[in-house]
C-alpha cells in the first residue's frame, strides 16, 4: 500500500513537472493593470444670500471660486544639475616659436586650430545651460602679447569670440574667465572647432631665440548641466 502511494505521488509530481515545461502557456500573461481611483472632489452649499449683494440690494447673477487641481502633480521632482570640468587647450611656447630662422625675422602671430567636439554629444548639447572657460597664462617674455580665441561651427562660421587677452611682459599669473549663458547665445552649441591665436604686440625689444623664455597657456571648460 505504501509503495502504491509513493508511486502515485511520484507519478503525479512527474506529471506536474512535465506539464510545467510542456503545457503551461505563458503567452497568456498579459497583465495590464487598469486601476480606477475614485476620490471626493468639489462640494459646496449655497444659500440665497450668497447671490445677494446686501450693499447694493441687487442680485448677484453669477459667483465663481477656484482651487488648485494637483492630481497630476508629482512630488518627486529631482533635477540633477551636475557641473563638469574638463581640461581644454594648453601649450608652452618658447621665443624660437616666434622666430623664422630662415629669414631671420620675427613671426608676429602664430595660430593653431583643433576640433572641439564637446557639443557633438547630444547628452551635453541638450542639457548644458552655461559654459565657463577659465584661463591661466604665464608670460616670461619681455614682450606683451595678445591671445585671441575663436570658436567656429562645422562650416567655419564664427560661433563665439572670446574677448582678447593682453598679457604684459613678465606677468606670471594672468587669469581670465569667460562665461557663456546658452540661452543668450544658443549658436555656441553649434561650435565644432576652436582656434587660438597668439600675437606679439609691437615692441622695440626683439625676440631672441637663443634665450629660453616661455609663455605658458592653460585652460579648462566647465559645463553646467540640468538633466
Amino acid at each position, binding site marked *: 500500500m505504501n509503495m502504491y*502511494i*509513493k508511486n502515485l*505521488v511520484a507519478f503525479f*509530481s512527474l506529471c*506536474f*513537472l512535465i506539464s*510545467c*515545461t510542456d503545457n*503551461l*502557456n*505563458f*503567452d497568456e*500573461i498579459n497583465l495590464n493593470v487598469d486601476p480606477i481611483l475614485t476620490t471626493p472632489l468639489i462640494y459646496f452649499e449655497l444659500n440665497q444670500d450668497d447671490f445677494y449683494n446686501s450693499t447694493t440690494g441687487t442680485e448677484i447673477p453669477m459667483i465663481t471660486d477656484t482651487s488648485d487641481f494637483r492630481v497630476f502633480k508629482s*512630488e*518627486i*521632482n*529631482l*533635477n*540633477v544639475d*551636475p*557641473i*563638469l*570640468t*574638463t*581640461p*581644454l*587647450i*594648453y*601649450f608652452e*611656447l618658447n621665443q624660437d*616659436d616666434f622666430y623664422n630662422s630662415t629669414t631671420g625675422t620675427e613671426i608676429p602671430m*602664430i*595660430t*593653431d*586650430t*583643433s*576640433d*572641439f*567636439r564637446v557639443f557633438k554629444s547630444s547628452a551635453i548639447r541638450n542639457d548644458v545651460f552655461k559654459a565657463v572657460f*577659465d584661463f*591661466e597664462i604665464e608670460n616670461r617674455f619681455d614682450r606683451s602679447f595678445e591671445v585671441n580665441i575663436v570658436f567656429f561651427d562645422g562650416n567655419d562660421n564664427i560661433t563665439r569670440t572670446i574677448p582678447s587677452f593682453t598679457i604684459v611682459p613678465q606677468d606670471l599669473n594672468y587669469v581670465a574667465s569667460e562665461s557663456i549663458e546658452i540661452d543668450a547665445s544658443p549658436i555656441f552649441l553649434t561650435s565644432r572647432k576652436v582656434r*587660438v591665436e*597668439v600675437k606679439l604686440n609691437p615692441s622695440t625689444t626683439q625676440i631672441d631665440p637663443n634665450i629660453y623664455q616661455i609663455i605658458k*597657456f*592653460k*585652460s*579648462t571648460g*566647465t559645463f553646467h*548641466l540640468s538633466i
Partner: protein
Amino acid sequence: MKKLLLLIALIVTGSLKSQQKLAFSFGETPQTLLLNPGAETNFKSHYGIPMLSDFSFNLGLTGFNLNDLFSNDSRAFRTRFEGVLNKINSTDYINFNTKIDVLNVGFRLDKKTYLSFGFYEELDFISYMPKDFIELFYYGNEPFLNRTFSLSQVSMKGDFLGVFHAGISKKVSEKLNIGARVKIYSSSINIESLNNSGTFSSTTSNENIIRQSLNNINGQIRTSGIVDSDDEYVDSPNEYFSRTFLGGNLGLGLDLGLTYHFTSQLEFTASLLDIGFVKHSKNTKNFNIDGNYTLDGLNFEYDTSSLSNYWQQVEQDFRDRVITEQTQEAYTSWRPMKINAAFKYSFGEKRSKSCYSKTHKQYYYNAVGFQLHNIMRPIKPQFSFTSFYEASLSKKIHTKFTHTINDYSSTIFGAATSLQLGKLYVFGGLDNLLGVADVSTANSIAFNFGFNIVID
C-alpha cells in the same frame, strides 16, 4: 480556543514582515527542510499546496529608509535626496529576494529516512550603493577637485532562476540526524557587476589647470538571458518564465544540514545552503572596460609643418589605452551561499506526540536559544544574530518569538507560528513588530507563509 486559533490564523495569514530565518530550526513545518535538509521530521509525508506551500518576500535597504526620501514634510524632494546621499556609504545596499515554492512533496522512505523534492522560483537582487558615482553623476566633478572616485563601489548581482531539488533527511542515531539536498538551477536572467576596480579623479596639475585620470580601471558587467541568440533584447515574459524550467543556463548546487542532540534538551542545528554555481553559456552579453588614461587637454603645438587634429588624437589615444568591448564569453556565477546555525535548549512541561508508524516523540513545551544566519554577498556577508523563545500552546499550535540584530537594525523583534488545522499545516512569521506601525521608517519589508498538507 476557537478565538485563539482565529487570532493566530489572522496573524499568520496577515503577516507582512518576517524572514525565512524565523522558520529555521522551527521543526514543525515541512519547509524547514528547505532551510536545513538535516532537520528532523515527524511526519509520514507532506504535500505542499502548489504555489502556496512556501512564499517569501524580502525587501531590505541599509543606510536610509523610505521616510528619509518620501516623508510628508515641507522639504523639497531634492533636499531629502541630498540628505540620503549624505547619509549612505558604499557598503549600504538594496536587497530584494522572493521565492515561490511551486511544488513541494515529501514522504518517508523508512523509519529513518525522509525524502523530499520539488521546484521553486527565486528572484534575488542586491546592489551596493556606489556613492562615489552617484555623487559624480549628481554633482559633477567640479566640486570634487582632487577627490578619487572608486569603481570598486559598483557591485551588484541579480538572478531570476528556477530550482529543482531533491533531498534526503536521515536519522543516523538517536542523537544525530543529517541531510542533503541536490539542486539543479535553471537560470533565466543573470546580471552581475562584481570585482570592479580602479579610480577616476580630477586633480590639479602642472601641465594644465586640472588633469583627469582613469587609474587601473577594470570593470565588467556580465549578463545572460537578457538577449536572445540573435543578440536582440528579450521582452517576452513567456521566454523568461519558460527558461526557469530547465530551458536556461544550468547549474548545480548542494545543501547540507544536521541536527544534533547533546542531551534530550540541548539541540544544535546547522545548514549550508546553495553551495553551487550556474554556468552561463547561452545568451550571454558582457561589457568590459580596462585601462589607464590621463587627460591634460589638447596640447597645441603651433607646428605649421604638420597640422594636427588634437581632438582626434586624444580620442584615438583614449581608445588605445582604455579598451572597451562587448563579448559573449561564457562565465560562471556562484550562488549566494547561506550558513545557518542554532542552539536550542528545551524545557518546561514534557509531552509526547504520535508520529509516523505509531511511534511517539517526546518534546518540551518551551525552548530558548540563539541562531546565526549568514549570506555570502559580493562586498561582505550579511550576518544576523537571533535569540529566540519557542512555546507550544498546544500539540497543534507552536509559536516562536525572536530578537534579531543585523545590518538593517539591532531592534528587530519577530514572531512566528505554525498551526495544524486537521491535515493542513499553516506557518508564517512577522519579523519586525516595531516596524509594523510605520513601514516607511523600517529598513526591511518581508513576509513568509506556507500551506501544506501533512500526513502524520
